[in-house]
Structures are given as structure tokens and as C-alpha cells.
């Protein structure tokens, strides 16, 4: 046999079992979807009627701003907690650890009920120096409205979780980076801002995206203290009309829409912070879908050509 004649086609292995399992799962999935679409209890016309109702959109707005506000406040506070936990000062380390330990242990719903009823614990809020008489004093109930309680609880909850996310991100940066920056004479603050945080973001963003989505859905719990979020608005309507299921579907659809939007945003933020880490730019989800379809089509073409 001569070198030039080695031209036999190389055939990849066939996967018949994979095809069988794929078809069975696809059939079940289609049947489930058909069942949902055909079930009259979903009352899809009611869903359509309320999907963009003013009350629902008002609730949606409240859910969005409550999420963005508490995530921003929570992350700012969480970053301070993370820095405190990594500081040289043992008092800061212990206080930060205790805060994170305690508030991560409390279910969000319990925390919301607690902050809502905080007036029983602290009838007035005093401003002044520790151990000295107050300079200003406020009636707690004038500050802790339902919405105030909601913001407080969600922020505390989010700060305890994001502190761990930020700390993990900072620890993921190679120690040699800080040494190199120090050796060049950069200050600690500059090293943090320009060298450590941009690299830490690669580890922080995926976890922060999860946190954002968790808070988005967590906001639904504030409906128990009568804050007019998305779920509360849906409940307000079905308490009047008794169309429970279709209105829960309306709320569900909006949560899905928001989560999807956030996942897309997260993807592009990740892309931004992946600078210098991969030789090739990662593909976008749309590109990946297109490529997968193209691969499938070419496979069918090949099979047909053989047949």
C-alpha cells in the first residue's frame, strides 16, 4: 500500500440509543406542553386579558425597582463586609463574620416579618453616640413602612450573601498579581481598583447574576406585608375575581421574562470581564444555536447522500 492511497473516509460512531431516548423525551415534552395549552383551567384568555393590565404593570415596576435598589445597596454593603473580613483588623473580621453567619441563617420570609414588626423591638430609633443619650429620636413606625421594611430585609439578606460572593472573587485572584503591583509601587487602593477587582469580577459576575435572580424572585415574599409588588398585584386581582390560576400564570410569565432579560445582560457583562482570559471570543447564545442547527442540517444531508 502506498502513502498516497490512504484516503478511506473516517466515519464517526453512530448513536442509535441516543436517538431513541431523544425521541421518547421529546414526545413526553410535547404532550406536557399540549396538556398545558389545552387545559381549560389555565383560562388563557384571562391570562391575555390581565397580562398587561395597569395594576400588573404597576406591580411589575415595583418588583423591578425593589430588586435593583436592594441588589445595589446589598452589594455595596456586601463589598464592605468582604473587605472587612479580609482586613488585618481582627475586630472587623469577627464582626463581619458574625453578621454574615447570622443573616445567612435567617430565612428571607422570617427576616421580612421581623423588620416589618421591628417597632415592637425598637419603639423609637435614636441617633447619637453609643452609651450616651440620643440626639435625635424618631418614631420607628414613621420610618418602617411596609416598603421600608421590605427594603431593609432584602438589603440585609442580599448583603450577607454578596459579601461571600465578593470575598470569593477577591480570593480567586492570584497572589502574584498583588505582589507585582506592590513591587511597581502601586498603592493598596489602586491595586484593588485596577488589578484585583477587574480580575475578581470574572468569578463574581456569575454568582452575582444568580443572586440578582434570587432577589428578583425573593421580592415576591414582600407581598405578605402588603407591598404592592408583582405577586401582590396579581393576588389583589384574584381576591376580587377568584381567577387564581390565570393570574398566577401572569405573574409567572413576567418573572420568566425578567429572569431571561437578566441572563442575557449577565452574558454580555461576563464577556466584558473575560478580556485576556481566552484566545477566542466566546460565542453568543444566538451564534451557538445557529451553529448547532447548521451541524444538524449537514448531518441530515450526509445521511441522505449515503442513502
Amino acid at each position, binding site marked *: 500500500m502506498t502513502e498516497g492511497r490512504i484516503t478511506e473516509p473516517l466515519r464517526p460512531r453512530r448513536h442509535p440509543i441516543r436517538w431513541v431516548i431523544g425521541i421518547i423525551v421529546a414526545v413526553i415534552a410535547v404532550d406536557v406542553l399540549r396538556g398545558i395549552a389545552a387545559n381549560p383551567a389555565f383560562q388563557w384568555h384571562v391570562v391575555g386579558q390581565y397580562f398587561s393590565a395597569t395594576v400588573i404593570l404597576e406591580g411589575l415596576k415595583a418588583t423591578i425597582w425593589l430588586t435593583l435598589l436592594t441588589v445595589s445597596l446589598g452589594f455595596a454593603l456586601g463589598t464592605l463586609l468582604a473587605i472587612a473580613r479580609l482586613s488585618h483588623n481582627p475586630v472587623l473580621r469577627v464582626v463581619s463574620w458574625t453578621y454574615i453567619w447570622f443573616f445567612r441563617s435567617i430565612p428571607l420570609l422570617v427576616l421580612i416579618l421581623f423588620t416589618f414588626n421591628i417597632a415592637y423591638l425598637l419603639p423609637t430609633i435614636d441617633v447619637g453616640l453609643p452609651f450616651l443619650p440620643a440626639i435625635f429620636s424618631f418614631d420607628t413606625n414613621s420610618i418602617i413602612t411596609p416598603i421600608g421594611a421590605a427594603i431593609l430585609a432584602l438589603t440585609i439578606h442580599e448583603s450577607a450573601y454578596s459579601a461571600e460572593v465578593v470575598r470569593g472573587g477577591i480570593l480567586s485572584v492570584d497572589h*502574584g498579581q498583588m505582589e*507585582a503591583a506592590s*513591587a511597581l*509601587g502601586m*498603592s493598596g487602593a489602586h491595586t484593588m481598583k*485596577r488589578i484585583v477587582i477587574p480580575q475578581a469580577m470574572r468569578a463574581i459576575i456569575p454568582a452575582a447574576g444568580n443572586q440578582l435572580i434570587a432577589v428578583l424572585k425573593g421580592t415576591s415574599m414582600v407581598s405578605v406585608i402588603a407591598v404592592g409588588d408583582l405577586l401582590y398585584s396579581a393576588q389583589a386581582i384574584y381576591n376580587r375575581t377568584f381567577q387564581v390560576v390565570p393570574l398566577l400564570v401572569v405573574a409567572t410569565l413576567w418573572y420568566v421574562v425578567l429572569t431571561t432579560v437578566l441572563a442575557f445582560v449577565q452574558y454580555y457583562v461576563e464577556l466584558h470581564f473575560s478580556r*485576556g482570559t481566552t484566545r477566542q471570543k466566546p460565542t453568543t447564545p444566538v451564534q451557538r444555536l445557529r451553529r448547532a442547527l447548521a451541524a444538524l442540517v449537514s448531518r441530515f444531508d450526509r445521511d441522505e447522500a449515503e442513502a
Partner: protein
Amino acid sequence: MSEKQHIQTAAAPLVRIRNLHKSFDDFEVLKGIDLDVQSGEVVALIGPSGSGKSTMLRCINRLEVFQKGRIEVDGMLVGYREVSTPKGVELRELSPAQISRQRADIGMVFQSFNLFPHMNVLENVMEAPMAVRKMQREDAETLGWDLLNRVGLAEKTGAYPRELSGGQQQRVAIARALAMQPKLMLFDEPTSALDPELVGEVLGVMKALADEGMTMLVVTHEWGFAREVANRVAFFDGGKIIEIGNPEQIFSSPQEERTKVFVSKVI
């Protein structure tokens, strides 16, 4: 072989290390180091691993805190200031900002390069001059191009560190350190992480730097380099400098028993 710089030993040394002691917990790594390095001199630090040569290097720009002794670079006491008290002179630790200012004048090149992966090559070189020396962006860019040209990487300015070979990364790291116009360059095993065929390009850049009169302290296992470029070679063992002298003396006719054993094993 190029001309080694002729070193005037009468002048005040650029680096003066006296009675340097350093421990990690209970383990004493440096047991009293004395070393003078003249301006323009290249000193190679050799010895078995764990002998303290890298630790001493890292004490010079205070990446390591030491327990006893003093280090002066160009007349400046590293990490401390002298204060007279009624009980006598004591050394008080400087603030982080003051230590940063001292470090800016001492360049360092690491075994693992430690380039900033999220910045391209030019940005890596420009960052410190802009942040620390408050240099204008345009000036830093000109400086960056010049230095990258000098290390033979002018065509790579837009590349990210990951896209470069180890030898290229280390040359960028040298350019980055030179951008601060240091009085002294510290090299901590600069070629140990490189594939053998890439060692030469880094040593070439270091040799050119030595020929220009840069004062250099080099922890190295490259004996050819030490022989050809170093003015003096210091042999470390057990946290002490056992023997120091010109390369010929250390490699061909060592006086101390431990030096003889080490040299005979490696050659």
C-alpha cells in the same frame, strides 16, 4: 563575550545589607546576611533551594518583612526611618504609602512573570508610570513603545499576556519594571518557568541591560549567564552567604567546602 562594567569599589554601595535575619514562624530562613552591591554591578545569587536567596531578594523591596538587620538602597533605609529616643536609636516602620514610594525605585521580575492578564502588553507597561509617577497617557504610551521595542516586542503591543510565549511574557515583565526607571533591578529566577528554548531570549535582554550599566541582583540557576554577565557570584547555603567572589573563583576554584560540593554537583 562583552565587556563587563568596571566597578569602582571605593564609592558608596548602591545596596547595603547588614546582619539581615528573617524567620517564617519558627524557621529561620536568613541567619545574618551582609552584602554590598556597587552601582552598575551584576551579582548572581546561587545556591540550593531553600537557602534563602529569593527571600533576601524579596526583603530588599520589602515584599517580605524581616526581624533584624537593615537594608539601604541608594542611601535610603528600606521600610523604616531612624528615630532617636532617650533609650537610643530605633527604627520605626514606614507607612504603606512611604513603602510604596521606595518600591517604585526598585524593579522586580518574578519567576511566574505576574503580568496583568486583563490588560494588553502596552497597558501592562503603562499602568505603573501613570498611576505612581502621574505620567501623562501620551508620554506613558511613548515610553511603553520604546521599552517594548528594546525587548524586541514592538509588534506585540496589542496582544494579551495569554497570547504570548513564556519568554515573551518575561520580556514584557522586564519592560514593565524598567518603565519605572528603577535604580536597581531584582530578578527572582527569571528563567526557571521557561521552556529551555525560550531561556536565551530572556537572558539576552538581561545581558543587554547589564551592558547598559543597570545594577542587578539575579537569583539564577543559569550558570552560563552568571559566568558571562555577573561581576560577582554569591553562594548561599543555610540562610548565609558562604562565599562571594568573581565567577571564575566561585565556579573554578571555590575556597569553602560547601561551595566545592555544590559546584561539583551541578557542573
